[in-house]
């Protein structure tokens, strides 16, 4: 620009500049404290605007599931295609239940198998996982650090990669055609142990020491002191275990041959893989909804606990 800039600044000018900089900083400081606001502010509108396309794309397929599940047959292939049905029906659900009876195994049987195996996975994985996490967090023993490190590495292992030898181990244990085939491979949850351990690390050590002085043994401390305090982490593991068990169709597909011992997701996937008939489309949407609903309901109920647990999920 012009050479006025090069003239040395007077003291007053310097003070004015410093004042301006301070004002600018104060404005900036206001911007900086906008994380986790307690009330709505106009400045949040731009973030909501970013979210609109994101939410649309995320929600559309989920809306398709719901609307397709309740669409009558003639509307599934109507032209032009409509997102919402003009008439709602439960036909797809009744078809789903009655067709299962035709294969010889009733729908209720698959449902029962899914329910029992999921419940067993949740209960047992929380039990053995929290015991191990307790030992990692509170107890001293030889090989603890190594075991925890191995567990840490195991988080990174992709379960599908060991599908072949799993078959061998399950048959060696003689449990391929039992309910346990659904349960055992899912019990070791390295992520679950890790999350619970991290959460237990937040329990004050004084509490543990006080309980020891009061004469409680480790099992008593685990049961009556620590477990009630780490409920959020246990709820999170319950959700993760339920997701893994409830959605698992691989076991029924690959390791279980007895039709009466297979689970819901397997039965539902046979509907979608086989035919491309119009009826199958409506039934599959209904099946999708039945699989998805418990997952999302459980998450909505327990989301507070999950977020609470995630605060300590960091790997160092």
């Amino acid at each position, binding site marked *: 620009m012009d050479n006025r800039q090069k003239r040395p600044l007077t003291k007053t000018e310097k003070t004015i500049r410093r004042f301006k900089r301070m004002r600018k900083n104060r404005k900036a400081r206001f911007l900086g404290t906008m994380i986790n606001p307690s009330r709505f502010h106009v400045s949040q509108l731009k973030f909501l605007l970013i979210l609109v396309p*994101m939410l649309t794309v995320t929600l559309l397929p989920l809306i398709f599931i719901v609307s397709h599940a309740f669409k009558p047959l003639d509307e599934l292939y109507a032209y032009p295609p409509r997102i919402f049905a003009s008439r709602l029906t439960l036909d797809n659900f009744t078809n789903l239940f009655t067709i299962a009876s035709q294969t010889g195994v009733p729908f209720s049987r698959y449902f029962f198998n899914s329910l029992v195996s999921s419940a067993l996975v949740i209960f047992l994985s929380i039990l053995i996982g929290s015991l*191990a996490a307790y030992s990692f967090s509170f107890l001293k023993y030889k090989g603890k650090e190594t075991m925890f490190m191995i567990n840490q590495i195991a988080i990174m292992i992709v379960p599908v990669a060991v599908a072949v030898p799993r078959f061998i181990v399950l048959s060696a244990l003689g449990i391929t055609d039992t309910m346990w085939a659904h349960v055992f491979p899912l019990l070791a949850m390295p992520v679950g142990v890790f999350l619970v351990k991290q959460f237990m690390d937040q329990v004050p050590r004084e509490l543990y020491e006080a309980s020891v002085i009061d004469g409680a043994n480790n099992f008593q401390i685990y049961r009556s002191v620590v477990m009630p305090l780490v409920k959020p982490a246990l709820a999170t593991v319950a959700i993760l275990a339920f997701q893994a068990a409830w959605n698992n169709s691989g076991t029924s597909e690959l390791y279980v041959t007895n039709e009466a011992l297979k689970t819901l997701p397997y039965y539902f996937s046979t509907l979608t893989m086989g035919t491309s008939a119009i009826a199958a489309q409506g039934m599959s949407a209904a099946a999708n909804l039945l699989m998805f609903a418990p997952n999302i309901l459980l998450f909505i109920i327990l989301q507070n606990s999950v977020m609470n647990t995630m605060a300590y999920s960091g790997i160092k």
Partner: protein
Amino acid sequence: MTAETLKPKQKRFNTAYLFVGPYYAVFFTFVVVLIAISAFLSFTYYDTINFPSWVGLENYVTLFTQDADFMQYALPTTIKYALIIGPGGYALSFFMAWVLAQLTHRVRTIVAIILYSPSLTNGILMSVIWKVVFSGDARGYLNYWLLSLGFINEPVQWLQDSSFIFGIMIFVGIWSSMSVGFLAMLSGILNVNKELYEAAYVDGMKSRWQEIFYITIPSMKPQMLFGAVMALVGTFNASGLASALSGSVPPPQYAGWLIVDHMNDYGFARFEMGYASAISVVLLLVVLVFNRVATRLFGERRG
């Protein structure tokens, strides 16, 4: 009581092993032993009926020199898919978590539940919905919308063209990428000490971008690493989508054919368990390399 007299003997046994024992028994059987068996079988020929016979490195040599489907499709497709979905889904998860952190608690909770919900769907079952959306005739939603908006003149065969199939896979992958890692990062951002931001602004920080790169990310590195690991596991666990979409195994021109698909094809369709194990070992090594990179980027430097 009697503990007094038994003490010298009991001292040798630490009850801690009763706590960690059951978990490690299951963990060893279904994680460690499985990997060991995989590694062993990868050096054998095994058809599930006869006892495995030792073939040395033959499986690996075949895999890398003669298996064109693996070298041309499975390996490059997996790496391409992982490089797009891994960092892409991860960056989007972080960005969405950051955006959500700028909103009030109630709005944030609702939006977080919606964004997280795709990762709760069953991948195989969802293919039905994708088939409806990307159906090749004018009744498919995408075709119908594009036709009525005048972008195309005739329906596009989305599910029979290899490049479209891969594109749809990427879309579905990104769609369901906001999983546990996303929740971890969201809670990480919310838990960054606010005083750090204030101090930084006093020290002359100017923009919200600087805020992200100089304060937010460095303060939540552990959560960033957890998110990265979860993203990697999710990415490499994907399989079977291309086949489910196109309705054939393998899909047209091996589009979207991943290492896991190749492994399942040999293991459970052709019963060549030894060869399938070699593929799984390669897969585990690929995952290991990606994990090393993630740990380098976000892990805390020791020493």
